[in-house]
């Protein structure tokens, strides 16, 4: 079957630094695929380039059979793909409700927007309680939920999650990982970027390990679990 997202010889360069050095990656429909690696391995650069935030210097990104390599970020959510960026980056001076409304900016039908909001409130009842509150006043965990909720507002088929567990208390991290499984069960394909290797491998179907801009390991999550410790520490 044709993968939902396919990166081939994917490269990203910032000036003289090549952050992503020609990677190949596939994500199948309904999978949770983890993209693992240490800080600076090129994981976020890969995600940002897929979403159009930074230019792809070489290679292609195909989403659902369509070439999205050179699309600007504003064209990406329309195609059914969305990125919840690293560091949550909710709009702190907007209310929770308005953050969600912005997540649905590309959605034309008001009924679809309402349905999406109902779904987000069902997943995160706390957001409904705080809907009139400024997003900047939420706790870190709540902001992460809002960031994911906001990304869900355009009903994506593929959700790219960049470090959703970053800076969260262990109990909240667990909630976020449980939520990712729930979303997959609802039919959303997930690409999960994580430094929390153990947590990510627990819920992922497959995983890729990145180091210095290259893929240095891949396979079913179960196999990766055994190898990951060595790979993560760079002992080979």
């Amino acid at each position: 079957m044709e993968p939902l997202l396919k990166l081939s010889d994917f490269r990203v360069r910032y000036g003289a630094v090549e952050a992503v050095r020609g990677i190949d990656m596939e994500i199948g429909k309904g999978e949770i695929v983890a993209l693992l690696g240490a800080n600076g391995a090129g994981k976020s650069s890969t995600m940002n380039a897929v979403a159009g935030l930074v230019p792809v210097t070489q290679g292609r990104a195909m989403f659902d059979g369509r070439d999205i390599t050179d699309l600007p970020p504003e064209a990406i959510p329309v195609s059914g793909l969305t990125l919840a960026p690293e560091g949550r980056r909710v709009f702190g001076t907007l209310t929770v409700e308005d953050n969600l409304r912005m997540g649905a900016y590309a959605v034309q039908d008001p009924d679809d927007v309402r349905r999406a909001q109902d779904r987000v409130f069902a997943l995160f009842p706390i957001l409904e309680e705080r809907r009139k509150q400024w997003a900047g006043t939420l706790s870190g965990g709540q902001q992460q939920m809002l960031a994911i909720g906001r990304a869900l507002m355009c009903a994506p088929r593929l959700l790219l999650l960049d470090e959703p567990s970053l800076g969260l208390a262990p109990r909240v991290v667990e909630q976020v990982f449980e939520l990712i499984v729930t979303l997959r069960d609802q039919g959303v394909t997930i690409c999960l970027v994580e430094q929390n290797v153990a947590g990510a491998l627990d819920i992922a179907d497959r995983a890729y390990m990145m180091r210095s801009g290259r893929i240095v390991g891949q396979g079913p999550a179960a196999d990766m679990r055994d190898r990951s410790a060595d790979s993560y520490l760079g002992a080979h």
Partner: protein
Amino acid sequence: MDLILQQSVNAVALGGTYALLALGLAMVFSIMGLINFAHGELMTIAGYVLMYCGLASVPFVLAVPLAILAAMAAAMAMERIAFRPVRNASGATMLVTSFAVAMILQVVFQNFISVRSQPVAIPDFLGQSVTLGGLVIGVNKIVAILATLVMLVTLELFMKRQKHGIAMRAAAEDFAVARLMGIRANTVISAAFALSGLLAGVAAVLWVSQRASVDPLMGFTPVLKAFIAAILGGLGSLRGAVAGGFLLGFIEVFLAAFLPADWQAFREPIGLSLVVLVLVVRPNGLIPAATLKAVKV
């Protein structure tokens, strides 16, 4: 007491005009990190449209919307032609570009219209005054205050309730993430310029109807004041710009009214010293912007 009330009305009228201009500057700055010094030329353009409409005997009620529309169109054209190519350049590059746009327009006005100040036909009723509870208030002052109020309330509602207004606030806070939501960079920036043009156009009509003349450098002084007001309020903060505009209006009008005659020569430096004093106490302005550094596209 009456004198204080009388001067307060003047201060609100003048401060309101500064507030509209400062708000336009802040709107563009909050979204793309550009301090648009050519903002004043938008005022001048609106002023000339009023002048030509007067010469062509176009009724004033038609001339006003035409002048405002001209300022909006000019603002959008400025963005498309001059600022879009340097959008990702440094703040300094954009600032110099805006100076260039301002100077080019000033020279165009000087060479193709006139170096000298031109009279603008203003309806008589604007020059009259009414007595309200013992105060004699110029109709143009009342119009200025009402127009400012209507503009500020409308914009507040737009930015708070309307999808596109909220999108502009989102883009001002985090441009990259706003684009991830599908908010188009070109649309938002163009809209910010259109709104800044609208505000400059309204301010120009108010400004010209107090003075009944227009000259090539007309926009320079009020926009310099508006820039000071925007800094006073907290650069990039919309509410701050409005607060700064009104405060500056009060400082200027009250110094002009109550400073002893021998001191009047130092009115401007005293006023600016007060501004500096406020900034010493509140370095980020009266109402600082939520995101001090504008995120580039």
